[in-house]
């Protein structure tokens, strides 16, 4: 696997508090050699965690299963909360965007209507002026 991908995977496995945006931004400024070095370090940490988990599992399988189950439950709850937060945020944005669109459509409609009305009025005015003038002049002859 490409080392950059490996590093991203390790960040995810270790659940480090780095957002994907931060990963992308910072990864761009790294040379291949630096990435390789980081992978080595991250793998050392992962290896220790794996050994730790295995030690606990060997020492007390029941307790280990409980810890894992609690961890899964906590993560699931956290994911759900996160999903809810994002949805609420998206909802707020959607309302704002819908409102902006609605206002824009209304404004465009008003402008078109006003233009139609004013042109019609001016057309009528033209016709009236011309007919007033011509009829007044014709009458006088």
């Amino acid at each position, binding site marked *: 696997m490409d080392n950059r991908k490996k590093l991203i995977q390790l960040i995810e496995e270790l659940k480090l508090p780095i*957002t994907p945006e931060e990963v992308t931004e910072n990864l761009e400024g790294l040379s291949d050699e630096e990435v390789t070095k980081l992978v080595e370090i991250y793998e050392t*940490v992962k290896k220790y965690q794996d050994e730790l988990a295995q030690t*606990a599992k060997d020492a007390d399988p029941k307790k280990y299963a409980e810890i894992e189950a609690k961890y899964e439950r906590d*993560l699931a709850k*956290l994911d759900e909360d996160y999903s809810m937060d994002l949805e609420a945020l998206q909802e707020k944005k959607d309302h704002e965007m819908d409102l902006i669109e609605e206002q824009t459509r209304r404004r*465009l409609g008003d402008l078109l209507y006003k233009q139609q009305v004013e042109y019609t009025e001016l057309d009528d005015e033209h016709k009236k002026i011309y007919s007033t*003038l011509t009829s*007044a*002049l014709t009458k006088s002859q």
Partner: protein
Amino acid sequence: MADSTTDVGERHQAAPENKDKAERLAVKKDEVRKSVRNNQDSEANVLVDAFKSGISSEGGLNSSSPIIRETASLHQEARKSADNITEPGEADKLLADLRALYKITGGNYDIDSLPEDKKDLVQRVDVWKKERPLGSLDERNARGLVQKALVNDIVRGEANAQVAGGDITSSLSVTFQKLEAKIGDEGKLAITRKDSVTGQEYITEIRKDGDTWIAEERKVGENGEIISQAKIGASGSTELTLNYTGRRYQRRANPEIKASSEYQGTTATVFSLLSESVLEEQTADHLRWTKDVINPDKLKRDLDGFGERAGQEYFLKGYIVRKAEAELAKEELLKEAGSKNISRAGTRREAYKLQRADKKLKEMEMTLLDIVGQDDKKEDLLKAGQKPEVEFAEATPIDQMTNDQDRKDLIDSRKIEFKDELEQKGGKFAETFGSLDETNQDAQIVALLNIERRIAAGKDNLAEAIKTGDPEIICKFAGEIKHAELEKDAMKAEIDVALAEKRREKSVDSWKTSWKNLVRQVSHGRFPVGSVISATKEVIASHGRLITEKVQQKLNPLIERIKEGTQDIGEDIVEIMNYVDEGLTEAYQVTAGVAIGGVRETVENFHAKMAAGEAKFERTKIEVRKKYYETRHAVDITKQEALMKVGVEVLAAKKHALIGIAKAMPGQEEEQKKKYRERHERLKEAKERLLQWKTKEIQDKMADNPRFAFFAEQIEEHAAQITAEAPPPTTARQEESPAPQPSAAEAEAVKQPEPEIRPEEQGESGKGTGRYEEYVSGTGTSLDNQGQIIRRYLRWDEKSKTVVIEDVDEHGKPTGPRVEMFAATHDIAKVLINSDIKDRLEREGYEVNRNFVPKKPEKSE
């Protein structure tokens, strides 16, 4: 047969009929040569393509097809024999063969050489193919394939080289197998969809009637009118219907093929497209998992072993409900993506519903695999649940289309639709649009089409995004579509304003002509001065709104001069009339300016507001995401600490158990100890390696590149947290056993005694009433305090409403001054304790970990 070497000149002189024949022959030979030469390259390309693809998409041929072989040999022969032809008839035959040859291979078929009815069909199918420039990509591609197959069938039919039945059945054999596997007891597969352009619902159904496979699309409703149908018999016999009725197809866009056995390749193509589209829906990842991997029947059998029927039923019901939730959410999303008016709210709701249902489903599947003991399949399940890699496309602007004819067809077809829309709007919009020159009309249509293509691409992308199940991506594309739809409306508004302005220009021009004529008559003294003045005054009095100040200023001195009896006022009157004209023109210009400027300003405002909204959303989203990642890390650290505690505590406890084992079963003690020692060694080694990660080389790299330092610091902080000593184990003892030495952290943890809680402070904490106590330890990581351990004892007493915080040594004895704070409630006390920990540690030069979470100490009973 005449001698091929006969001198043409001799014949020419010999007899007029011979001269004609020779000329005809020469012409024909020339045609043959030209045909061979002109088609050489394209024919070669067609052959190469045909061999590569097996031209299965064009009627089930493969590279060994007799037609392909025949093509090659005929072409070779034609080249050799073109010069040896002695009779015009032979040349004609060869030419006909060549034409048929090129038609068969899909090369250069000549539509004009087809009979009228076939020519008409080719043209109609071409219009049908292009009928939905803004429909879904799948629909457009499918129609393209059908059109290609149909043209191929027609030219093959003319050359009497229809696709053989055996080729049809063999090209569809894999599809038949897939269908057989999926069709089930009901004997059919059916799905309901919506036309991406008209919104009309239709059913796609695949069934088997005896030996005949039938794939069809029919409208939803009592009549169930068939739109397309492909029947394939066991021997490869075919029957095709392509009959698209309705307003959109009135303009020669309906192929009108009804139960025809003529188009074998097309029938196979239609059958394959319909079947694959239904099968694709049937084999969504989850569904495949449910059927092939989890296998409900097997699961039930496995669960029987547990003797928990009620539990099984409950579990399965829950699973089915989640499954239904996910599938329904996906269905709703696809409906939303296909609808004319996408709703942000609807898309968002269903996208998040899908995400949560998918997640729960996945959890249940994992649990299921746990129950039935199929851990090995978990990885497969995770892989199956990974987001599929999808590609998102950007719309190509019309002027980047490579095929000029296609571009022209697209513009023309949209122009017709646009004129229809303008006609429906009433007024004189359509008429004014029609009066614009062609270039101007095209410019408007191209601008409109570009936005519509963005909307269509957005819809394709939304359909792809749904496959990922990621609500953020789904909502992003729904938003982009809505945005583009508004831009389309704004574009139409701009066109409307421009058309109204155009109309106004026309009517003003005509009015100006009459007005100028009148002015000329006045200036030439056509009317008596008195009547001109009174007529002018009447106009001014009755149409004050349009009379400008200039007119008033000119009029007043004029009236004075009239009173004085001046007769020479013709020029002044003309000037006034010109001012009236100007006033009216200005009024028009103001209105036009307000409308045109207003539309532009409104659109600019819209873009600015949307961009600001997007930016704000992105900022907040990043904050929410950051918080989520930090909390998730804290959860993980808590888990690592719990694992550390179990490892240290239980291993320590086992040491004592080993003493018992040694006494009772001497033989087993060594084996147990060996296992224990190995495990300890491995953990110890892993930890030692971890503690040595920050070499000089790494430190240099951190100093050189802040990006590198960013990642290094993240892991440094994480490593510090997972290697910090665990809270003191309750079961550990200091008695030595034959066991190996624990690691540094473990040794530290084992050494630590319970914090000494002074009797007067212990109060009723053991009973859990009125007191809150915590023991916290942290490792300093700043340069000054490198490696130092700080231990802090915290207590809140409900009775005195006081929080007490003090540092203690390794034996629990106070080492510094006490801090006392007032806290009315338990929750306030907790907040104070947590914030104090951070503040004080930071003040004292310690770098406090971001997720520093105090823990309760183990209490002795």
